[in-house]
């Protein structure tokens, strides 16, 4: 078996087992959507392991569960006012963050001695969010100046830890480290390794002070966001 097949096969096995860590899982699922061979490996592992399900005893769920499921599929979009208000608040925060980011980008370009910012089709942005859907970091890539700016808009790094930034997706086999991030960072977009920018998802993991000692995320991945073209 060739090395890459071996890697694919055993990684798919760990995906089905559920033992990939959060960043690996995100990266794997991104590849899975467009890699037919990988889908076949996942299906093969499910077939191999599903006989074990016969060993699992059945358990009766609470009686009202199905009514709750029906209520959820009957209201595809949350329509209650509280939920709407929450969403509006989040969008306001996101919009404020975008505005702040845009302002800082323009300042950055001016400082660089560039008279006008790049056309919009050279700009990519990402809002990194956690499970509470609050923006934690915003990122922008300017292809023309080959720069990437990432700025924290959410909670500060917890004491005794560092936040580390990673690039996922594209043809990357594993999360690619981009460095420890404090309030903001600026790196060359060359560090994205020539991957298509809109195939890239940025992620921030919680690491020991100074960053991951292994070159791969060791702590939970707290925030993720996909880079999208502004035009």
């Amino acid at each position, binding site marked *: 078996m060739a090395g890459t097949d071996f890697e694919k096969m055993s990684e798919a*096995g760990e995906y089905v*087992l559920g033992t990939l860590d959060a960043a690996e899982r995100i990266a794997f699922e991104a590849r899975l959507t467009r890699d037919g061979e990988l889908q076949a490996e996942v299906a093969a592992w499910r077939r191999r*392991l599903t006989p074990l399900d016969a060993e699992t005893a059945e358990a009766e769920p609470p009686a009202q*569960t199905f009514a709750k499921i029906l209520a959820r*599929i009957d209201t595809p979009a949350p329509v209650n006012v509280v939920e709407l208000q929450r969403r509006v608040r989040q969008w306001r925060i996101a919009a404020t963050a975008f505005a702040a980011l845009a302002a800082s980008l323009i300042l950055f370009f001016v400082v660089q001695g560039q008279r006008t910012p790049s056309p919009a089709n050279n700009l990519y942005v990402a809002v990194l969010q956690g499970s509470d859907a609050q923006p934690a970091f915003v990122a922008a890539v300017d292809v023309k100046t080959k720069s990437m700016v990432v700025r924290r808009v959410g909670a500060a790094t917890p004491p005794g830890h560092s936040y580390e930034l990673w690039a996922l997706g594209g043809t990357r086999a594993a999360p690619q480290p981009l460095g420890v991030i404090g309030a903001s960072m600026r790196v060359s977009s060359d560090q994205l390794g020539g991957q298509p920018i809109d195939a890239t998802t940025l992620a921030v993991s919680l690491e020991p002070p100074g960053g991951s000692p292994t070159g791969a995320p060791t702590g939970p991945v707290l925030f993720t966001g996909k880079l999208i073209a502004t035009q």
Partner: protein
Amino acid sequence: MAASADSAVLTTLLGQTAQGDRAAFSELYELTKAKLFGVIRRILIRGDLAEEALQESYVRIWSNAQRYDQSQASAMTWMIAIARNQAIDLKRKANERVAANAVALEDVTLVAPQANADDSADLRSLRECLGGLAENGRDMVLLAYHHGYSREELSARFNRPVATVKTILRRSLVALKECLDGRH
């Protein structure tokens, strides 16, 4: 598995569910809920989380039924994969909320390896191949599959570094595939 959960029936019901048929979905739920809840309860000890995972699983089964491909897996295998994903997701999120050292390492009783007369041939092969794995490979695979153990939890339980756990898991999976392929 319940005798009522006949594979062809489930496939038909899932196909009708994909067309938006509520009655079929309701029947599908009745036939599969106990199995899926059993799978989820082994991963999520907390009852409220288990019920949340079950709800989320069936919402996804409803909305993704069109994507079910019967050439890839039986209807039950497909639904169990969704339930395990939901349960493991919720388990990881719950673990993140508590300190890493407070991860509940409940005393899990591993499945006894003895065979039963009514075991499927596939299950007998799988049990034998699992039994041949070196370095706690069998227990690690079973704890991950049945109870949603992460590498970190396996590391704590077997007192091995996380990187070693990953290596053992990968080696075990390769050996398992080779052993199972050799039997077909």
